[in-house]
């Protein structure tokens, strides 16, 4: 079995060295690496970042189920977003849609916490800093969480053609949180329901075209790490090793500055 390559600091390949990427992303894109900034408010904190003298709004703290997962102080963040025409929030230009990736290596320069000011409010926050202020789940006090019936291979889904399930990642990362579980669950369920003959796992190494024209490339070896991890997980949740193939492509995907987050991925192809 091949040894994993050493984990290395992300490589910046300057656009001049890669003429195909040198054009930069569209003008309304803001793709950059910078320190996140947290600004407190009377309710929940909002997250910002500064790029070329402008403050950008990334999102607010919500919870587990939110689409936006805030970054970490103590780490730089890769921001990949589009400038919207919405009013500023917390003083920042709103990026929407946005994808953020806390970078793995620590950076102690990124420790800015701004106090609450009356002029910055978050009226749309779906919950405050404390307990949820909506009715408890299912609208009933004491309601239990979502049904927890045991998962048995269902016969409901009739066997049909090959299907793909995609696990997406933040930059330079593998799975270590719950966001990646839906596609793996769906792939597993489909494979069991269709008595799949083969399950192919292919992972990719991404790259991000930044607004300054440079390219931020994921570490060598990240695709292998992703592929092996997804392969292991699928086996642990019930897919036999003999039906699986695990591959990875360690060549960085060509970035365009728009949908680069979608290319940091592992594709699970289930073939009934």
């Amino acid at each position, binding site marked *: *079995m*091949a040894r994993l390559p*050493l*984990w290395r600091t992300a490589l910046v390949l300057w656009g001049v060295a890669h003429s195909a990427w040198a054009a930069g992303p569209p003008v309304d894109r803001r793709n950059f690496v910078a320190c996140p900034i*947290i600004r407190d408010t009377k309710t929940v*904190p909002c997250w910002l970042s500064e790029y070329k003298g402008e403050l950008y709004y990334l999102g607010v703290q919500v919870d*587990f189920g*939110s689409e936006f*997962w*805030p970054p*970490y*102080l*103590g*780490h730089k963040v890769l921001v990949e977003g589009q400038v919207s025409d919405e009013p500023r929030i917390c003083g920042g230009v709103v990026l929407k849609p946005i994808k953020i990736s806390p970078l*793995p*290596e*620590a950076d102690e320069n990124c420790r800015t916490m701004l106090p609450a000011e009356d002029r910055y409010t978050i009226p749309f926050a779906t919950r405050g*800093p*404390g*307990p949820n202020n909506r009715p*408890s*789940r299912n609208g009933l006090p*004491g*309601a*239990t*969480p979502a049904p*927890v019936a*045991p*998962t048995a*291979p269902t016969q409901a889904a009739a066997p049909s053609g090959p299907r793909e399930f995609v696990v997406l990642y933040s930059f*330079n990362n593998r*799975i*270590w*949180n*719950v*966001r*990646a*579980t*839906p596609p793996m*669950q769906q792939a597993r369920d489909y494979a*069991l329901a269709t008595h*799949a003959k083969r399950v192919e796992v292919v992972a990719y190494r991404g790259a991000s075209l930044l607004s300054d024209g440079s390219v931020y490339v994921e570490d060598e*070896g990240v695709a292998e*790490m992703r592929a092996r991890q997804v*392969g*292991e*997980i699928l*086996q*642990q*949740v*019930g897919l*036999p*090793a*003999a*039906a699986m*193939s*695990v591959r*990875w*492509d360690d*060549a960085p995907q060509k970035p365009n500055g728009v949908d680069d987050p979608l290319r940091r991925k592992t594709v699970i192809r289930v073939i009934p």
Partner: protein
Amino acid sequence: MTPMAPRIDRPSRRGRVRRRALTAGLMGGAVAYAAAALSQSPPPAPGAVGEVAGHVPAQNAQAATAPIRSPGPEPDPIYAAAGRWWAPGQAGLLEQESAYANPYGKLTVRMASGPVEAKGHPFFEPLGANGRSCATCHQPADGMSVSADTVRQRWRETSGRDPLFAAVDGSNCPSLPQAEPASHSLLLDRGLIRVFLPWPPKAKDGSAIKPEFTIEVVRDPTGCNTDPVYGLRSPNPMVSVYRRPRPVANMKYVVGPERGPGSGGLFIAKNGLPAAMDPETGRPVSMQIMSDAREPTLKTQAVEAAITHLQTGGKLTEGQLKQIVDFEMQVYAGQTDSRIGGSLVDPGGPPALGPRNLQSASNGVLGDYLDNPVFKSFEMWKAPVPGETPAQRSFRESVARGADVFFLRPFWISNVMHLNTVGMGNPAKRTCATCHNMQMTGMDLSNGWMDLGTTNLPTAMDPYPSPYSPAKPEMPLFKITCDKSVPPHPFYGRVIYTQDPGRALISGKCNDVGAIVMQQFRGLAARAPYFSNGSAKTLRELVDFYDRRFDIKYSEQEKQDLINFLSVL
């Protein structure tokens, strides 16, 4: 290529995908119910009935090596008369409800299925070589755990001959002179039992897991991690950590229903990895029984505990295991009287208090809602009730305020692995109830483990070295160095100093170092000290730890209100 190895295809140097079979596979095995649906059957599930988890054979070997000091246990007439200490093999009836005094009042233990005769019951009988029973460390009077006060009393009363002080894990190390109290200092001072785990970690099929980090012993005040027979460099390499016995009560909240996301809780909420399976049913389990989640069910926990703590040398019978699990599932424990506040379970009082409410309430309920709090309502204690004494009134008001501090008072939660990394951001502005969100117990309804900083430096309670202080470190200290092939720990980097690597001793993962499964809040008054490493000797020290850890800046009033609140649970 082994029969069950997946095909692994590596890219060429240019990154072009090409296929090649390898001789080694990824993780083997699959759960039986899943395999049945596919045409190709996997091998039998490791850890299935009749087997033990992968780490247990090594533990068994060490347990068999440890000397047996105590003679067969004799019921202690002093304790038996007091009805407080359940000695192994002692005859007697556990009444359906028994109240036991503690420093804050009284705790009541309830047998939901009716009185239980201890004589002949495997939970109370000495089943192994050292004369202990399960009840030795899970005493009803101590909320089904064992307090350090009780440990010290037991030492005084028996001159250290009680099986509680068995060399295998009731001493700092089996190689120490067992008659000396200093050899049992962690049990006497902190109520800690030695937990010995093989290194490198073992998968459930017994194969070695390649850890993502190296471990070095920096400090070894107990001598056990550097011991030639019991240590990390011994022929049976073992890491010794020291942990509090968890309470065996209110277990319906601990074992289920499945906690994680995905249909049937197939994944662990905190890290997105597959949940452990019940080897008998093939269903995912809560993974909330043990501090490192290493045993999936009460039954497998009992198997391991008998081997390691009781030195049985092998598995208990199916009948014994069933009796133990059945007993554990029907025990409820909660504080019922306050020394100052009087009865906690009067009609019209707080609806979450006492063991009867614990028995009747639903499990698996998320309590992090304003309309459905974790420990339900204490509002009725904010207004006077006829007949209350001034002291009662004052105490009850304080408890009600403490419930609000617990539930509503925000602070910045930072650098908690598997909390700040799971959608909250770092830091997150939230309250105690964000993590302690399961109704009735204050456990976390999202399964998994997190690193609060109780065992990792710099936040773990550890004495400052000083020539002017007599305080000496009691706990071992390990240096963890994370491999460069994996991302660094987001909050510690690649080097972590810890008293107990926690879940990482099982998973081998860098980001699990110091991560521990949260435990329940019930019966706290009866079972000091607190945290898995017993580092908070009192409820005040527990509150102070959080105050320092997150720079909360609680007022003295808030601290006392929180203590009073915790004392009635």
